[in-house]
């Protein structure tokens, strides 16, 4: 205590002596030697101590788990190896996007599963967005009945497990819809919808596009996609030139018909050249043939995920629209904008900033919830790699690790997209 006091005095004298350079030495640096208790009590060392303890504990825990693992594997006569991926899978998958048969390898089965996961997830993302936006906007309708009905929809679907919804819709698909044989004969109890779609308990059959003079394989579709992309860029160029003209003259040229032509004419021309025909499903033997078959499990999963997640998206949309303050709408009206321009130029851009991040995390949830496929027998990655392959090969650890890796990669990709979007949309404060 006294020593400090003296130091202070000396320092004060110094200040007086040297005038303006008073910040030089106020107190002597502590000269006490290092003691062991300082590891815990001194803030300079404490975080190092804590981290060292944490590192040691983590290493011990990992070592403990690893030694248990190796002891258990040795006792069971197992090892960790990914060789099983190359061996034949030996099971059939009824809904595949790529060529697959029971002689294909487990890796190919996993790829079929991955594609099926991505298929159901992207389909469900689209429809869930449609349902969600519709319900969210209608929940703000000034029609009391519609408002209440939408609130009812949201509460019912949010508060009941998605697994139960998947099972309910799967039950409708398998137990309520008629079998193919009920479409047969003169006194058939069921008939095809518009003579084009057949809703049976084995799945839904829809007309499928066929190219009579196409190149075969995926090339035709790639061509169609390329043309559509070109149309997209063309419409953007049209919009940019309209913007320029509006900036110069103040009058925006009408672009609606030009855009419609750009979108439809090239694609229709291409499809005619390729010779597009629609193959309508027909009852042959005991089942429908031709067209596209969408299996019951896929529809159950797709629809259940859509309505379930749609309820959550509806809440996000409602919150986003309500987050735009009323003054914004009023200010835009005061500027003389009509109500649809108010919506598209003022309210929506601001609401989207609030809506998009939770929307993307709902997409992430859809992707993860698509693993419920295993409950209805849709061959997604969880049902192939984590289900049948796991059970047949007994490679539990390897299969589950690969399964987790796949979902982790998907999640990381989606959150990376979200971060890019958030940075682009961040309010630029100057």
């Amino acid at each position, binding site marked *: 205590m006294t020593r400090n006091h003296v130091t202070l005095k000396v320092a004060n004298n110094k200040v007086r002596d040297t005038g303006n350079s008073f910040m030089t030495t106020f107190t002597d640096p502590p000269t006490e030697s290092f003691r062991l208790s300082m590891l815990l009590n001194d803030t300079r060392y404490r975080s190092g101590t804590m981290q060292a303890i944490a590192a040691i504990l983590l290493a011990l825990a990992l070592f403990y788990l690893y030694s248990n693992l190796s002891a258990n594997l040795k006792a069971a006569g197992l090892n960790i190896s990914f060789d099983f991926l190359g061996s034949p899978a030996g099971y059939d998958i009824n809904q595949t996007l790529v060529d697959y048969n029971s002689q294909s390898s487990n890796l190919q089965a996993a790829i079929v599963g991955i594609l099926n996961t991505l298929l159901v997830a992207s389909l469900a993302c689209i429809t869930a967005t449609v349902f969600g936006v519709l319900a969210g906007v209608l929940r703000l309708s000034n029609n009391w009945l519609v408002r209440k009905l939408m609130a009812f929809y949201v509460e019912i679907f949010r*508060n009941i*497990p998605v697994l139960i919804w998947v099972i309910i819709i799967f*039950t409708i698909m398998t137990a309520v819809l008629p079998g193919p044989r009920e479409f047969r004969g003169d006194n058939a109890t069921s008939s095809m919808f518009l003579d084009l779609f057949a809703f049976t308990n084995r799945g839904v059959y829809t007309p499928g596009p066929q190219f009579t003079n196409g190149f075969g394989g995926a090339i035709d579709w790639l061509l169609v996609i390329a043309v559509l992309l070109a149309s997209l860029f063309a419409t953007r160029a049209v919009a940019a030139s309209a913007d320029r003209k509006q900036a110069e003259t103040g009058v925006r040229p009408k672009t609606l018909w030009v855009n419609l032509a750009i979108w439809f004419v090239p694609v229709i021309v291409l499809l005619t050249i390729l010779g597009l025909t629609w193959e309508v499903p027909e009852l042959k033997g005991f089942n429908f043939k031709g067209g596209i078959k969408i299996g019951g499990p896929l529809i159950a999963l797709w629809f259940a995920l859509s309505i379930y997640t749609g309820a959550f998206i509806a809440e996000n949309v409602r919150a986003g629209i309500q987050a735009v303050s009323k003054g914004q709408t009023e200010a835009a009206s005061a500027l003389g904008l009509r109500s649809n321009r108010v919506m598209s130029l003022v309210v929506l851009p601001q609401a989207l900033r609030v809506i998009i991040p939770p929307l993307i995390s709902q997409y992430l949830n859809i992707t*993860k919830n698509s693993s419920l496929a*295993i409950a209805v027998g849709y061959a997604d990655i*969880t049902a192939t790699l984590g289900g049948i392959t796991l059970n047949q090969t007994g490679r*539990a*650890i390897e299969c589950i690790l690969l399964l987790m890796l796949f*979902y982790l990669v998907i999640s990381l990709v989606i959150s990376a997209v979200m971060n890019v979007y958030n940075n682009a949309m961040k309010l630029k404060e100057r």
Partner: protein
Amino acid sequence: MSDTHAQSVAFVRDTAIPPSPAPANAAGPVKWMRDNLFATWANALLTVAAIYVIFLVLSATLPWIFGGLWTTSSLAECREVLQGRSAACFSVLTDRWNQLLFGFKYPVDLYWRPTVAFVLLFVAAAPVLFFDLPRKLLIVTALYPFIAYYLIWGGTIWAPLFALAGFGVGYYVYSHLVHRSFAIGFFGGIAAAIIAWVVGSYLTGALASETPFLEAVPSRDMGGFMLNMMLGVTCVSLSLPIGIALALGRQSSMPLIKWICVVFIEFIRGVPLITLLFVANVMLAYFFPPGSGVDLFLRVVIMITMFSSAYIAEVIRGGLAALPKGQYEAADSLGLDYPQAMRLIILPQALKISIPGIVNIAVGLFKDTTLVSVISMFDLVGMIRGPILASTDWNGVYWELLGFAALLFFVVCYGISQYSQWLERRLATDHR
């Protein structure tokens, strides 16, 4: 101007006309309907469409529900009575009521035990949920896990007693060391509790009698809605403290601790719950010492707790980030150290902000407990899809069973979300 005006005035009213009632179409239900149902043409169309949808749904379901049968003993008998009429066969619910609630293996004469545990759950949860109740009820809350364990699993009473004693010893050591520093008290308490548990586990083995007062029930015999409740309540309450720790760890300035938490949280949030349940089912056993034989229920609890604690950690991190920086600085300037600042200043406010998020996670988790049916545990959904629909008596009774499950979950989840909204209003201390 003024004299022409003066001559034209022949009559000056000196009393006010009594107010006449508003016209019929601008008041009462008519006005309400005009404003809310038929404001514009589009609106009127929407209203008609909505009424049509409601009519379709109700006309299909109401006769089905109210014409339902409750007392037949099988679906065949049900169809005989109905004679082609479309109506519900609710007798499956009365016939299989106990299976739906307790699973098909829990001893029938012991149903009273989980029932008492369920009733006590409300007593134990009440003081946590409603602050006006006497604080002494919290003793019940603290004792509840041990009572419930003893009631549901039975067996020797020494196991829950020594578990409780371990907490007691830990708290005793903590309270005697905490004046030196929070860290010493905290870790000392944990160490003492672990020692007490190890000693207790040996003593339990020695003291356990061959014929315990309450018959032991293995956890593989549990099922039905009871299993959903057990998983939901256990995992949510376990994951709250872990979630808080993870959130604080993620905010920590120590890089190693921060990265451990970040990797754990992001890994768990990146994979679906089903894969974690697969881990519990076929993989986790490899990580326990050989021959320890940890049962499936415990493995599932471990994985679901990890799952929900990662999500709760993210919600609480949001709460921590939402606090103004001034709160942290004010705590520092008062001279509080880290544990004090967290306990007294930061966490009470951050947790309050996080309540809606935590409740959302809890509701989501409770719904997700149905996923255990995928790894062949017989929870409510597992019971319905497995033993009940597969039985010859009730093969084909889908809607009654699924509707019952949906209703049960809806009541619980909607109730919880309504409570959370009430709590939010209750805790709102800003004056708006």
